[in-house]
């Protein structure tokens, strides 16, 4: 089963905007600013997999510093106090929230996995048989943050068949 899915950068930006307003920047002073730079570096990433009528992954990636700031905002602590465990927990929750909201834009019946977190760049992990179909690339207080969507090639092949 396969479906034609269009979730573009604007859709991802809307989700990111809600996450920032709710947890990372409730005062609205430090939003995620899109740059469109697909080659920006990342140092940590978290992902959730989606299966069903659409199959693929949603990946949240950032610099370690941005992840540390995010964890500090979530946990209401100073960023110097943030541990690796905190980073993993918050990155996983960010991937879960972003992935869940992306899933809402997909056809009904998709399932969301629990998040996976890797304290290494997104480029260090391969998503076999999947290709990036959209992405939001930006900076938050000068630190790179991205949200990307990867669709299973099997899914895409069925679409074009």
């Amino acid at each position, binding site marked *: 089963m396969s479906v034609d899915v269009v979730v573009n950068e604007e859709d991802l930006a809307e989700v990111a905007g809600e996450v920032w307003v709710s947890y990372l920047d409730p005062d609205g002073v430090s939003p995620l600013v899109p740059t469109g730079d697909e080659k920006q570096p990342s140092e940590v990433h978290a992902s959730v997999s989606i299966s069903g009528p659409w199959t693929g992954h949603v990946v949240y990636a950032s610099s370690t510093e941005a992840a540390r700031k995010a964890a500090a905002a979530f946990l209401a602590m100073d960023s110097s106090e943030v541990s690796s465990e905190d980073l993993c927990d918050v990155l996983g929750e960010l991937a879960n929230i972003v992935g*869940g909201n992306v899933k809402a834009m997909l056809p009904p019946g998709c399932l969301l996995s629990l998040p996976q977190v890797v304290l290494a760049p997104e480029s260090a992990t391969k998503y076999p048989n999947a290709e990036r179909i959209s992405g939001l690339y930006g900076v938050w207080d000068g630190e790179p943050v991205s949200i990307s969507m990867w669709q299973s090639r099997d899914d895409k092949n069925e679409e074009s068949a």
Partner: protein
Amino acid sequence: MRAMVIDDSRAMRMILKRIVTKLSFEATEAGDGREALDLLGTMSEVPELALVDWNMPNMNGLEFVTKVRADPRLREMTLVMVTTESEQSQIVRALAAGAHEYVIKPFTEGAMIEKLALLGLVPTGANS
């Protein structure tokens, strides 16, 4: 009043605990549905409110809601699903299983307090 926050993310538990504590609830927490049921089994007084994530390891939120509603000792708890699952069919499933309200992540503190106020769980003046 007492509230239990059930979410596999420690960060999300902290955010939710912050909100309910602000509303004068005494808060406890659990990392999944199984842990929550175990903890409830040890409590002499059942919390009035539980905020329950859906996607959790071991026992998910929907299973937890179903088990609570089937347990005469627990079934009076007010259950609020707090989750990224926003499909209409999922919301209907949760409400049919016995959840009273449904909050979709991400949520602001104000939105959560509004939902709890709708359930009559916000003391007068607590959300001002």
